Each structure stands twice: as C-alpha cells, then as structure tokens.
C-alpha cells in the first residue's frame, strides 16, 4: 500500500496525514489512552528526544546497531526515540518500588532502518502509544495477557479482522540473534497483525522484558530483587490504515464523526 488521498507518503519514511485519516489516528490514541486510564495507568508526557546514555544503559545499541537516529554529527548525545518505554525506565532508575507501576504515554518514534521506506505501513517516523507495567513477574505477565485480550476485544468491536501471533523483533547483530531466539523461545513477544492493502502488518505488540530493564536501571522490588517489566505498544497510523482498508473512508468518517 502506498498513498491514499489522506495518507501521503513522502518517499523518505515520513508521511503526511490529513482529514479523516488524521482524525482517525487521534481517535485511536484517545481510545487506548482511555483504556490505560481506566486501568489506573499514570499518564506521562516524555521528551521528544532521548539521551544516548539511556539507550546505552537499555542495551539498545547492542541489540539494534544502526537502529536509532542520532541528532547531529559524530557521537550524538541525543537521539530520536525508537520506542516510548525507555523513558519510563530512565525515569524510575534507582527506585525501590512500593507497589507495581502502570504508565502510559504516546509520542513520535523513529526507526532508522525504515528511513527509506516507500510504503505507508512501514515508516521511519510513526506514532506509538504504549502502556508500560513494572512490578513483580507474575503481575507483569498477567497485565500483558489482560491487555492482549482487551485489545482483541476492542478490535472485534470495530469488526477489524486480525490475529495475535507469537513474534520476535527483527534484530541485526549476533547478540541480537540470541535475543531474538530467546524472545521466540519464551513467548516474550506477541503481535496483533491485521490486513492492510493485501499485506499483514503488526498494529500492536505485547511484550515481556523479564528483569532485563529492571536490572539495568536498578529498579527493585521490596524483596530486593530486580523488577520485571512489560509493555503494550500500539502503532497508531497502522490502526488508521487497517480501519480504512477494511471498512472504507465512509465508515471512518462515521466513526470519527466527520
């Protein structure tokens, strides 16, 4: 799928949205924010850039070499965020959690590998809403399952057809292959995939990180052990594309009250 009248890909991994498509992205973000707030998540608004030392501490550059876009030449100290949740671990670094924490935020994210993308379903720059869970292992695991089921129900209510499947991040380095295989083996990642223009695209992912970020950012539980974490990520432009592709523009107009 390339461009429609309201979804204009600029040929460099960026897109311009207008009219119903723009409103649809906002509509989906509002729904996911509402789901998170009803669930007791604290709404956050994170900086538009992320410090290089945060991504280093998160192991991002080891797992995804060349995956993030730096600002300025040479050793950039600030980067465009490849995902939302790294901000959350940095915010909680060094804390002892009295109770599990649930957060939500959305922001524009950037994946360097998709910079030259020509299609609207794979962009360098896109909008991601995340719900993030940090706490004991079993609690994080239950939250992920609950959110996956809620998202399935939400998609069913909108008569959006898709399927939730085990997945693994596409990594590039040798260490990344190991992490990819561990993800696959332990069922740490699931994706909800929907049909868009004859392709299947992931509109949401449901992730468990075990104690990886808890250890790296020194986020501990009362028992003195590293907290587990998990997150749910929604690709907002893809939800809009899937809706328009499966139901048409008139239904989209009706949905957002155009």
């Amino acid at each position, binding site marked *: 799928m390339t461009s429609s009248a309201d979804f204009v890909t600029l040929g460099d991994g960026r897109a311009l949205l207008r009219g119903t498509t723009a409103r649809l992205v906002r509509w989906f973000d509002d729904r996911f924010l509402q789901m998170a707030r009803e669930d007791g998540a604290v709404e956050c608004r994170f900086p538009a850039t992320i410090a290089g030392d945060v991504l280093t501490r998160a192991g991002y550059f080891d797992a995804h070499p060349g995956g993030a876009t730096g600002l300025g030449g040479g050793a950039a100290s600030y980067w465009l965020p490849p995902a939302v949740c790294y901000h959350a671990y940095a915010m909680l670094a060094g804390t002892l959690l009295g109770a599990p924490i649930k957060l939500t935020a959305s922001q524009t994210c950037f994946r360097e590998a998709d910079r030259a993308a020509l299609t609207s379903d794979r962009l360098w720059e896109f909008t991601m809403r995340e719900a993030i869970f940090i706490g004991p292992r079993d609690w994080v695991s239950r939250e992920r399952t609950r959110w996956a089921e809620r998202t399935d129900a939400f998609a069913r209510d909108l008569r959006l057809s898709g399927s939730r499947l085990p997945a693994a991040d596409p990594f590039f380095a040798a260490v990344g*292959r190991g992490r990819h295989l561990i993800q696959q*083996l332990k069922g740490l990642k699931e994706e909800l995939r929907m049909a868009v223009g004859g392709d299947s695209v992931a509109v949401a992912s449901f992730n468990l990180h075990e104690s990886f970020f808890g250890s790296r950012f020194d986020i501990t539980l009362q028992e003195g052990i590293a907290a587990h974490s998990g997150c749910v990520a929604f690709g907002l432009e893809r939800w809009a594309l899937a809706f328009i592709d499966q139901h048409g523009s008139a239904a989209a107009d009706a949905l957002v009250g155009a």
Partner: protein
Amino acid sequence: MTTFQSRLLEFVRSDLLRRSDIAIDENTYLFDDGLIDSLKILQLIAFVEIETGQTIPDRDVVMSNFRTVRTIAQRFGSASPDG
C-alpha cells in the same frame, strides 16, 4: 542416556552455566530465571550443531525442542554420529 545427551549435559554444566548453586540434570528447565541468556542460547545452538552435524534453523528454536537437555537430545540427537 545417549552419548550425545551425556556430552550435552556436561557442556551445559561445565561450560554454559558453571553455577555451583544449582544442580543441573537432564530434566532441569534451562530457560527458567534467566539461566540461559541471549549469548548462551547461541553457544548452546552452536554446540548442538557441531555435535550433530546439522544446522538448526531459527524456526526450530522453540520451547518444545529446547526445554531441557533431554528434549534437546530427543529432538536433535537422532542425527548425531554417535548419539
């Protein structure tokens, strides 16, 4: 226990995990509590590939094949020259 299973168990005990605080036998769940991380999984696969002379595609690296030393040996050991 087959020769391959014995050698695999010895590799996991002595080279891969090297932990004196956990008794590891052929039925120990290898992926509980982060025993095997993203680097060790690659070492484990390399060992099995070298020992058995077969290449393990990524799609076969699933829990039903890798849960314990016994399951790895059952799944991949049949092609072992001495297993």
